């Protein structure tokens, strides 16, 4: 048996909700931690170490200096995990790229120049290669646990390429469309065990679009127009009266980062 792998948690710009989800695992976390040695975790530990084998990184890249920091972490860690949507696909942080930085600074600080050193917001996956990706805002606890175990047992983990609908059905949850709510579940990567739809709220795609998601189909299904619909969908579409822009904005809430490739983006780095 080799000695216990050393693990570290790091955070970049985010709400630190993912770390809370991890901490909330309680007994299960303590059991999992038996297999490792936690050497750095700023939110709960004072001591820190620059040597670790497995790094969990939460949050998005925001400062210029974050780039160096994440590269350093990548160099040190044998295994790097992006924790949650901020780290994997940018989350709400990336929405800010829709705006010029001066406008943002003016809006929030009343000074177009302050603070300095801010760059285009991006997930850590856009800067370094990660070995495991986890999604969710906050990270889906079952997925974190799965990945943690996969790492310790040297398994691959491919994020599920199936939509949330599958988990709704396997849990026998009513579809929220029947509650006259808009849901992005049919195009969103599952793995959250239908956390939102189980409580009657539509999925907001916090785990990001799954591969091969039929976005055009979704726009068509949700947009107010005169295609023939079955009664449930008819009610949803007529009450919410969504335009294409509304629908795309909904998808964009967590999925804005890939759009950074757009020509009209202002890069600030």
């Amino acid at each position, binding site marked *: 048996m080799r000695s216990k792998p050393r693990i570290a948690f790091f955070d970049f710009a*985010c709400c630190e*909700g993912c770390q809370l989800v991890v901490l909330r695992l309680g007994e299960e976390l303590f059991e999992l931690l038996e297999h490792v040695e936690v050497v750095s975790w700023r939110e709960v530990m004072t*001591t820190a170490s620059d040597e670790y084998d497995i790094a969990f990184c939460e949050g998005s890249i925001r400062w210029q200096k974050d780039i160096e920091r994440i590269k350093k972490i990548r160099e040190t860690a044998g295994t790097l995990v992006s924790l949650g949507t901020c780290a994997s696909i940018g989350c709400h942080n990336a929405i*800010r790229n829709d705006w010029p930085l001066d406008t943002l600074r003016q809006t929030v600080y009343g000074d177009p120049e302050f603070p300095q050193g801010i760059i285009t917001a991006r997930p850590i996956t856009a800067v370094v290669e990660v070995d495991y990706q986890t999604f969710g805002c906050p990270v889906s606890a079952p997925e974190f646990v799965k990945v943690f175990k996969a790492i310790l047992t040297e398994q691959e983990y491919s994020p599920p390429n199936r939509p949330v609908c599958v988990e709704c059905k396997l849990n026998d949850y009513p579809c929220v469309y029947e509650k006259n709510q808009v849901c992005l579940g049919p195009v969103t990567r599952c793995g959250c065990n239908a956390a939102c739809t*189980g409580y009657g709220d539509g999925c907001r795609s916090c785990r990001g679009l799954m591969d091969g998601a039929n976005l055009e189909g979704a726009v068509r299904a949700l947009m107010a127009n005169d295609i023939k619909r079955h009664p449930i969908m008819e009610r949803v579409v007529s009450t919410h009266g969504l335009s294409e822009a509304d629908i795309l904005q909904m998808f964009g*809430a967590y999925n804005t980062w890939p759009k950074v490739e757009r020509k009209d983006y202002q890069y600030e780095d």
Partner: protein
Amino acid sequence: MKIEINPMTRVEGHAKLDASGDKVRFAVTEAPRFFEALVRDRSYRDVSHIASRVCGICAISHACAALKATEDAFGITTGPRIRLLRRLACYGEVLSSHALHLYFLAGPDFFKASSAFELAASDPEILRRGNRLKELGYVLCDTVAGRHTHPVAMRLNGFTFVPAEEDLTALLHRLENGLLDLQKTVSLFKGRIPEMERETEYVSLRHPLHYAFYEGDLHSSEGKTVPVAEYSRQIREEVISYSTAKYARWHRDSYMVGALARFNNNSDQLSPAAGEAAAELGLEAPCYNPFANTTAQIVEMVHCVEDSMNLIEQIVSTDHPAETDEPVIPVAGCGVGAVEAPRGTLFHEYHYDGSGKCTFANMVIPTAQNLANLEADLNALLPTLAGRDKESTALRLEMLARAYDPCISCSSH
């Protein structure tokens, strides 16, 4: 002596503390995420969900403040059952957040441990208890709002899901056990809080009928009470060159929000067991010891647990609907919403156009409001530490900063 603590550990978010000569500075280095800008142009449907992402620890408070502000803007008055359920969720959040602070963040200092894990190595039961209390708070939130971070079931004018009566009453038993855990918590922390005294202005919400968390008017210990909608005319926010969080002041150069401020302003409304806990801990209003913010948190935890039982009974006996399929009709308008987040008064303000798009947003975060006061306290504390070595001075300064339970990613949002 030059002290630099960077980054501050066992706090939420990135900050650094440095002391050189007789001056201490507490700088927020967390990257701003520009939430006030990024909700602009977005639909009212998304606002509370985006807002809750400001902070993982006080997600419910942000969601509530955003929902209240939006409801205010749209002229919606929520029914009594909705308000009761939201209050319950707020209690859950206060309980979990305080438990996190007490047992995982600040706690280890009182036992000379560097982390909760180290603490657990010597006494696993302490960590287990902390975990149970934290979990109890989360379970309250889960039951009402689907989950704590980030709440799913809270929506404008109601909930997308309402817990069944059985689910609510099932909590009662856990809450009773929670009170037992809290008794042990009181004895554990009693007498361990460092002494210090610096009088300041204490600001919180105040409600005529109950110890305010979810609703109330804005109240200052200077003797002034105003409706929350007035907040921006009363409180001035100011950008500081070395910090991405803004500082705030009202009547004086700085003021304090959070558990101690609430205790000082509203202790007359505490539940009976909370009052007893305060007495046992030797906490009496007004208390001018900022370290006692931690003590006040224990008292508030007792209050939250005890009053939750009360709330559950009220919720079960009110059959006003809280769940609704009816869509909200947006109207052009401005609204302000304030709640007592675990760390103090939180304000959200939004303006909407007629189609329900957000045109302006402002969020005033408790930790930001506390920063000026924290610095003043640190500067008052430093001279009293003369004669100590660097390490113990640093630790004491750090403990004071932690006593404020700063929530830094929130403060720079």
